[in-house]
């Protein structure tokens, strides 16, 4: 029995040695991690706005890092989910550095019309959850997360149609002039067309026009729509606007005419 007791004593010493060495080296290694973020980049494609965050992880510790998973969830203030994006790096070996990019895509095409109209016309604060999950040294899963808000700039902020001016054009038509303006508060350019339909009090289209727009981020846009309307048409009731841009298509936006 004495030998068994002695053997257990040695086992305890060896296990303590292993766990102390592991603890010390793991804590030391954690302080040797380097995490760098680049500048946000934005891009747009068919119906989708993409934010790209370049990042690099330098692992100067003793242990490998497995299954690094960067996740970002974007919600409106009312908890409506706008985007859920993940980037996975399977392995960061000890002594190595990896460069990767994390893409956050917000698709306008799959968005509900209520969400889309809120985001197109009103600035807002978006709730973002960003988390880094990984398996450290193969045995310790870690997750580091942070919640923050990010401002959203409406691409069609302060959309207005001013007072309609009507002038005689010829014996059959009048020329109506509609002052039209909006401010692109977003981080992407608006390139595309605005189609305008003028509706009379009977709900019939009596005229229309299509205008090219090219509005850089954080700038305003104003123009005057010139529309020829036959004299036989009834009084104007409303203008219907249809936006067709490289990022989204939306319409009609019904604007009453004074």
């Amino acid at each position: 029995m004495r030998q068994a007791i002695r053997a257990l004593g040695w086992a305890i010493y060896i296990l303590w040695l292993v766990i102390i060495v592991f603890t010390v080296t793991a804590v030391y290694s954690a302080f040797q991690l380097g995490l760098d973020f680049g500048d946000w980049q934005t891009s747009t494609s068919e119906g989708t706005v993409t934010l790209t965050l370049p990042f690099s992880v330098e692992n100067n510790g003793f242990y490998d890092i497995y299954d690094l998973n960067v996740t970002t969830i974007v919600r409106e203030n009312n908890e409506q989910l706008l985007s859920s994006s993940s980037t996975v790096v399977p392995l960061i070996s000890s002594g190595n550095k990896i460069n990767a990019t994390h893409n956050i895509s917000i698709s306008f095409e799959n968005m509900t019309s209520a969400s889309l109209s809120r985001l197109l016309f009103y600035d807002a604060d978006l709730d973002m959850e960003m988390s880094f999950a990984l398996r450290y040294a193969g045995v310790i899963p870690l997750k580091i997360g942070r919640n923050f808000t990010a401002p959203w700039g409406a691409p069609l902020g302060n959309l207005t149609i001013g007072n309609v001016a009507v002038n005689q054009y010829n014996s059959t038509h009048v020329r109506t002039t509609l002052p039209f303006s909006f401010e692109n508060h977003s981080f992407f350019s608006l390139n595309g067309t605005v189609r305008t339909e003028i509706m009379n009090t009977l709900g019939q289209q009596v005229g229309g026009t299509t205008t090219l727009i090219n509005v850089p981020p954080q700038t305003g846009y104003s123009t005057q729509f010139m529309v020829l309307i036959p004299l036989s048409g009834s009084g104007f009731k409303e203008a219907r606007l249809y936006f067709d841009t490289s990022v989204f298509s939306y319409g009609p936006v019904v604007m009453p005419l004074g």
Partner: protein
Amino acid sequence: MAVVKGVLWFVFLYVVPMFIVSSLSEFAPEIFSSYENLLLLFVAIILFFVVASELTSGTIFQHAFNIGKALILMIFIVVALEGGIVALDFQGFQLVADLRIYLAMLLTIDLVGLAKSVLQAINFLSEKAESQLPTPSPR
């Protein structure tokens, strides 16, 4: 002897770790400063059992205290590591660490220590019983 052992364990388990914890607290005081109280409690438990075990050395109570120490340390480790899932808030970041494997390693050591203490107690009792047997007289 009990005092000497107590002082040595105090230096080994409290002074040195506190120096490390204090150094780390400069980087992340929200995280490491909260562990100072746990470390103090851990040292208090160890010191109590080391001194008690030393004072009762040579009796069955020494082994009883060793068994008690192993059991209480197991409970302490589970409570200190929050069952293996440790969640911390640090400068607006939420950190969650799954330390269940680490916890299992620590509990394994304590279980081996418990087994050793039980065997020592059995050995102590059996030797004591053997020493009380009548010595056979030569014919």
